């Protein structure tokens, strides 16, 4: 019945839809895909300063140069360290929060609202505070976390945080975890509550203990949620920029790929290098996101 109605639809209506979104389609094609191609093009030239004289194609030279560029490999390694700690930290923290809340508890709304507020605030603003909280001053001079650790008798854990060469990126992951755990909580909470109560009841009737219910009934159901969270956290982490700038500026110890791209473009006016770094970042993110988008669009088609 409804099919015949669709078939009787005048041709103009079917094209009409396209006409209305055409401006947006063209805009996205130009400003997303067109500019990416343009960036790739710049990255293949020797455009290393503001002047436009003698621009030549140099093939992949800018990319091969990056491999031997100590500052680039340093920022890439920093990004890897940051990403690992941030993803694990946010995942575990958010999961614990969700476990504590998922059965429902008095005051749940209160806790949930507070756990989610960090995502509404800019990292440039929070950087001022975390700059203090993660300050490296110790003992008598200590202020933030170092002081708090002394107070609760864990003074031996005092640390240089983001200042030390060795631990800087792990320290940087702390504010990121602080901000994103709420997101993980929200996704896991939705995951838990999407599981029909009957499944728990059935397992309970079969004599399963509470921990067995979690282990064998609930956790396996959360696999798609886990996948989503990993991809979201992964692409956010790889883009880390204002978080780093907000706390520690462009300092070498905490430099990551996005910050190095900014420095190369702004301070050194090396556009070819800047675009090459940006394209490397794009490829890294595409590797994570494109399979997810394809999986997602297939899911949509079955609906």
């Amino acid at each position, binding site marked *: 019945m409804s099919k015949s*109605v669709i078939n009787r639809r005048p041709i103009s*209506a079917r094209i009409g*839809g396209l006409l*209305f*979104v055409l401006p*947006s389609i063209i805009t*996205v094609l130009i400003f*997303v895909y067109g500019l990416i191609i*343009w*960036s790739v093009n710049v990255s293949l030239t020797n455009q290393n300063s503001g002047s436009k004289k003698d621009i030549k194609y140099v093939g992949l030279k800018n990319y091969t140069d990056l491999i031997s560029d100590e500052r680039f490999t340093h920022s890439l390694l920093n990004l890897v360290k940051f990403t690992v700690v941030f993803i694990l930290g946010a995942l575990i923290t958010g999961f*614990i929060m969700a476990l*504590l809340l998922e059965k*429902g508890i*008095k005051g749940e709304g209160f806790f*949930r609202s*507070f*756990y*989610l*507020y*960090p*995502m*509404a605030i*800019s*990292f*440039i*603003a*929070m*950087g*001022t505070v*975390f700059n*203090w909280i993660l300050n490296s001053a110790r003992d*008598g001079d200590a*202020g*933030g976390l170092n*002081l708090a650790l002394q107070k609760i008798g864990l003074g031996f854990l005092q640390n240089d945080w983001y200042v030390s060469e060795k631990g800087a990126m792990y320290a940087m992951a702390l504010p990121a975890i*602080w901000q994103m755990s709420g997101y993980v909580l*929200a996704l896991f*909470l*939705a995951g838990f*509550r*999407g599981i029909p109560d009957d499944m728990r009841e059935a397992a309970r009737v079969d004599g399963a203990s509470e921990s067995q219910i979690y282990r064998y009934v609930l956790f396996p159901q959360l696999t798609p949620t886990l996948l*989503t969270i990993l991809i*979201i956290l992964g*692409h956010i982490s790889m*883009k880390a920029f*204002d978080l780093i*700038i*907000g706390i520690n500026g462009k300092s070498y110890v905490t430099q990551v790929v*996005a910050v190095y791209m*900014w420095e190369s473009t702004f301070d050194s006016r090396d*556009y070819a290098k*800047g*675009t090459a770094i*940006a*394209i490397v*970042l*794009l490829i890294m993110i595409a590797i994570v996101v494109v399979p997810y*988008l394809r999986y997602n*669009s297939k899911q949509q*088609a079955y609906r």
Partner: protein
Amino acid sequence: MSNDIVDLITAKHDVRNKKRKLNGKEKFWLTFRYVSLIFIWFLVVMPIYVMVINSLKGIKNVYLVNAFKLPEKIDFSAWSVAWSGTDYFPQSISDSMIRTLVFVIQSSIISAILGSINGYVFAKWKFKGSNFIFTLFLFGMFIPYQAIMIPLVRIVTTLDINKSIYVLVLAHVIYGIPICTLIFRNYYEAIPNELIEAGRVDKASMVRIYRSIILPLSIPAFVVVLIWQFTSAWNDFLFAIFLTGGSPKLSVATTALNFITGSSNQVYYGVNMTASLIVSLPTLIVYIFLGRYFLRGLLSGSLKG
């Protein structure tokens, strides 16, 4: 709409066996859960606490060693300095805040209108290839904007529009198309097709159906998109720093703040803290009053609608 993700999260879940007396083991776990929840609550609130108390200590009495200590006397002088500046602290935040507010409101409204039209077509008037194009849109949501930034800077410089704040309106509208389209599309997908069919039987045009059936139902989605675009444009640093080139005349809240806290004013900790707090207030207030809509926008980014 029973499988709606935000409803799932905020659903009043049954507090099982509420009436029954808890046995010892259950009592222990309930206490354990509350202790853990309160401990996490302290960690989450701590940075804002530090910001607030240090903004109330005035100009001179703010030291790192007292970071967690409450002020001895409440003193708002840092607020007036951070907002309007004085001779020793010239970079105030008020001009940038107002400039940001004006441009962010404009870009959010344009984004919402575009998103609504796109979402309507992608949900209800699918054409050949529309799903593929929609996926192309979505990819635009995940890209690192660095990958388009250098050509974009060149375009706005060549067209000479980088001298006005509209360059940021343009950027946020363009790169907001994917997420806004997604939010509206997911929202319209849930509207029953029968409503559209009924309109068609009455020979209403596509535009007519949009105006008289879809638009009146769209208010919640508009709120979600407006809040989302408001928050992300307000908090944006990347576009602002690249496209306005650090020009003080075009500084927005985040770039002005970064300039203040990152420059030689480091001694005025209290003022820095206050400026950071002031910059955070608009998005915080939106979150406090419309948190549910904010959450929905946030979760759209995970594509789960």
